[in-house]
């Protein structure tokens, strides 16, 4: 049943791709898929471990710049550059977050905001590497078996495969001993400690896995839209990703997918009315916090449990 729901949510953008045959909508579907990947990765920390990582976009950005650099300057294949960039993102993200990983809830989130700002400043002030605020344009699409750029609808299918792999991986992780350990830490970290669980070590492991997924999304994003700039990986993006998880339903596999599907296309659909997007996001944050603390899917599950 759950797998059916997951399949339906992931299939929605693919239906749009093959059913509508509209280039712009196909592009939006691709964007939604990348955000599904990000939101699922962020959910591993926020939903399953109880940490709000507001550094998430910055970590994705490190991988994006690194992957772009490896491909455009050093001529590496995208498929080799992507795991390297993602590993680097996980490592840098980890090093910067190490002092923060012992902090709780609100304080972890706050420290994340500070670290995220440092990421953004670094992206702007190291122009030799990032081309500063101007950003790096003409980033090539990922290449296929024939060595040429993978054309759209197929590229979107590749993105969908990434989402499926990530969701399957996270689903399996959460059924494992490690996953159950993360849940106990989320529920009560003091009690977890008293029961012999090494809270810091397990959190750090979750952080590395989650950051790696952020990195995969970062590299894919830059090469998919053909552009990398500091604005694409700033604190607002971190907050948007958090909102997707919160609105869809944290701590579930379906929730982040649903949240990304609903929210990620908004900036593109409302491209002429950007302020409308900000208002919608703002209202969504308030509504979710007040009325749907468990998110849309969490609400559905609760209703189902009652009947």
């Amino acid at each position: 049943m759950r797998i059916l729901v997951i399949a339906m949510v992931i299939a929605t953008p693919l239906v749009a791709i093959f059913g509508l045959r509209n280039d712009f909508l196909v592009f939006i579907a691709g964007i939604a898929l990348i955000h599904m990947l990000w939101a699922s990765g962020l959910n591993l920390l926020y939903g399953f471990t109880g940490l709000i990582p507001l550094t998430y976009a910055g970590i994705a950005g490190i991988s994006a710049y690194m992957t772009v650099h490896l491909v455009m300057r050093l001529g590496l294949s995208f498929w080799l550059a992507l795991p390297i960039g993602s590993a680097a993102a996980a490592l840098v993200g980890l090093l910067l977050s190490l002092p923060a990983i012992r902090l709780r809830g609100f304080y972890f989130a706050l420290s994340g905001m500070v670290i995220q700002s440092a990421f953004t400043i670094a992206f702007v002030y190291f122009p030799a590497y990032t081309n500063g605020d101007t950003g790096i344009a003409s980033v090539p699409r990922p290449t296929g078996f024939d060595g040429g750029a993978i054309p759209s609808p197929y590229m979107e299918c590749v993105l969908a495969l990434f989402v499926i792999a990530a969701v399957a991986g996270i689903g399996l992780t959460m059924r494992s001993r490690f996953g159950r350990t993360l849940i106990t830490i989320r529920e009560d970290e003091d009690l977890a400690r008293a029961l012999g669980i090494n809270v810091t070590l397990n959190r750090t492991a979750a952080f590395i896995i989650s950051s790696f997924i952020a990195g995969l999304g970062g590299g894919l994003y830059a090469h998919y839209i053909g552009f990398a700039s500091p604005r694409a990986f700033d604190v607002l993006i971190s907050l948007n990703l958090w909102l997707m998880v919160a609105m869809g339903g944290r701590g579930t596999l379906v929730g982040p997918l649903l949240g990304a599907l609903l929210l990620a296309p908004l900036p593109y659909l409302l491209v002429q009315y950007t302020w409308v997007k900000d208002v919608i996001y703002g209202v969504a944050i308030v509504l979710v916090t007040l009325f749907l603390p468990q998110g849309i899917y969490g609400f559905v599950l609760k209703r189902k449990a009652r009947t």
Partner: protein
Amino acid sequence: MNDLLLEATDISKAFGGLKALSNVNVSQRRGELLGMIGPNGSGKSTFVNVISGTLKPDSGEILLDGANIARRPQHVVARAGIARTFQAVKIFDKLTVLENVLAGALGHSSMGTKEVDEAREALARVGLTADLEQRAGALGLYDRRRLEFASRLISRPKLLMLDEPVGGLNPEEIRAMIGLIQSLREECGIFIIEHTMKVITSLADRVVVLVNGKKLVDDSPQTVLRHREVIDIYLGTGDA
């Protein structure tokens, strides 16, 4: 082999200017059930917090089975074999009964597929017959206490420290709880903090009395309860 299970020497702990524990020495022999009493604020819970690694002592040594566990991280102390319960029951309210017991094994080396059987056994051990899939938060106090016990017992601790295990229970439940604790003596060393004297007199082999963070007496329950100062503290001096 040393016949001391726990040996706490010269334990001191201060919170700012308040000396919660001053040079306390407590030892517990293997197979012995040790009780600790004392008025509110005398440092009993602080003592359990220090021994179980929740708090680090300012000074002093703690040997469990001969190995030093003072100032080690809490999860290391738990893995070394000290399990504890809390004055206000601490379980994972949102998780199920079975998940709660299994959580007690997560920090310890994996038992593989036997784990669920072990969990059932731990529940049977404490006599809890609740539905395994029930949410723990929905249980009554006595069942919550027993679930707390089961989640600690699954890791087969060397020493189980109970902080007021009968607090809030009715007389019938208290009687049952005394029987349960008595039956656990064969499995591990037991250390109890209690206000209810009946629990102490019917279970403890030896009683330590803490007053203002200092050890006042350390003797058999019968001797301790005849001790002049203990009577004064619990019943008043008569000139108050």
